[in-house]
């Protein structure tokens, strides 16, 4: 017969926190930051189909690190909640704060009630009219929420990455600069003997919430457009920033091809996409 030993609530919570923190720290990291043209998500991700970064609603994006099945579960819930609210009220009434609150309550309840906490860390980002209006909410395994000042890092060695971000990030950066700072920050940890690494384009998952766009602002940046940005191509940047002004009424996005969005597919084919610098 199993014997019930006494464990103090404090001890239980500490054990759960430790477990969640360890799980999160094992994974590859992700960074989210505001730049002049919107909000940028960059995650280290070897898969091109199991996304760490996704669209939730018109102006809201989602990035997560940790266990895929657990954050995917929350992402679906978020999309359902956003679509339900958007249909019941209006598209403008779906906010990042409401979503962050719902995620926080859910994570908090799972942390205290279930035997195993979710080993995830989540960012809910909402793009505003200016970089100052952007909102980045960090949600952790225990349900706590933080409003981050324009940039954040999650996952393994997040503190070191956040340090690099803090020293290089400015809210008025261009997309190209922002991508390079994000990749530099991600590469600053995990190298041989503490040296910086170079991360190839095919190991990165990059997406933006495009401030200038009407309707659905989320867009993935893949393939040649991403390579051009990483190489510092001013031309690639101009292309990536260019809006599909021809289709203002269209919720442009995605995706006959799972890894490439319609938005980035048309960037890839344009001439002048080559890096100049």
């Amino acid at each position, binding site marked *: 017969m199993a014997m019930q030993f006494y464990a103090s609530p404090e001890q239980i919570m500490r054990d759960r926190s430790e477990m969640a923190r360890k799980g999160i720290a094992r994974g590859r990291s992700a960074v989210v930051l505001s730049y002049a043209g919107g909000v940028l998500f960059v995650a280290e991700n070897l898969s091109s189909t199991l996304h760490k970064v*996704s669209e939730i609603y018109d102006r809201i994006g989602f990035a997560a690190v940790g266990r895929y099945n657990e954050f995917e579960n929350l992402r679906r819930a978020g999309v359902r909640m956003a679509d*339900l609210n958007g249909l019941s009220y209006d598209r403008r009434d779906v906010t990042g704060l409401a979503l962050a609150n719902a995620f926080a309550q859910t994570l908090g309840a799972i942390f205290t009630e279930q035997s195993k906490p979710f080993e995830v860390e989540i960012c809910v980002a909402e793009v505003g009219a200016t970089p100052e209006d952007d909102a980045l909410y960090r949600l952790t395994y225990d349900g706590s929420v933080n409003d981050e000042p324009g940039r954040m890092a999650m996952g393994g060695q997040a503190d070191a990455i956040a340090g690099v971000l803090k020293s290089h990030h400015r809210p008025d950066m261009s997309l190209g600069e922002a991508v390079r700072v994000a990749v530099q920050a991600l590469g600053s940890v995990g190298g041989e003997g503490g040296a910086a690494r170079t991360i190839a384009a095919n190991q990165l998952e990059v997406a933006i919430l495009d401030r200038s766009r009407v309707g659905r602002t989320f867009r993935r940046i893949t393939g040649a457009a991403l390579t051009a940005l990483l190489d510092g191509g001013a031309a690639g940047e101009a292309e990536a920033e260019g809006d599909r002004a021809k289709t203002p009424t269209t919720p442009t996005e995605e995706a006959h091809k799972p890894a490439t969005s319609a938005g980035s597919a048309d960037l890839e084919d344009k001439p002048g996409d080559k890096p100049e610098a």
Partner: protein
Amino acid sequence: MAAGFDPSGRLPDVFTNAGTSSFTSFLSKVAPEMLPGRRPLPPGLAADLAPHATTIVAISTAGGVVMAGDRRATMGNLIAQRDIEKVHPADAYSLVGIAGTAGIGIELMRLFQVELEHYEKIEGAMLSLDAKANRLAAMVRGNLGAAMQGLAVIPLFAGFDLAAKDPARAGRIFSFDVTGGPYEETGYDAIGSGSLFAKSALKKRFRAGLSVDDAVRLAVEALYDAADDDTATGGPDLSRRIFPVVMTATAEGTYRLTDAETAAIGESVVAGRMENPGG
């Protein structure tokens, strides 16, 4: 909030279940009262109770499809609205036009837009064009009870098929009846009270492989012919500057012609009819 949330603020299980990728099936669990077909109606005919939206035409072209709708909504013998918009983008590559009871039509169209977007966000890939038509057919079928009491909604669906091998055949049109459908149409189709006249006009003037610009002109001409013979269809209104809504769906996505563009086409069609009223 439509769905009852836990007092704790935690998302209920139905949100976090693996469940379905369909928004309407999700809605049927959390807020069934928001589905158009789920409302009990008192017995009796209600046809003249609410405004009716009228004629929509769709034409397939060499590079996609064109859909146009007049701007009139009628209620019995009255004009309920002069500038209603009945043609909308369903998603980035498809269009939906609504004829029939305007209020239910708009609700159905919004729900359909969310359905497509929801699937795309959950699955990370778009539905095929045929699947989109099937989803719309299911929604129309769901409204059958109300349709039998006179509150019918008939959509017209058209889009650019990203999976089409031959780009000339990528523009596809689907029609529906009150019991659902869908039926794929070849070349062109029209729905609503003026559709008889619009289709007759298109029958004589449609050619396979039209350019998008020619098809836009043809669509506005067909709406003019419908307005000519059907009182419930509105023609180009030069004094109020109200012209048909014209949208295209091509490989570049959907596009709504600007007011200036439709005004130029509308004026030119009217000018042509000054000389030859039959077109």
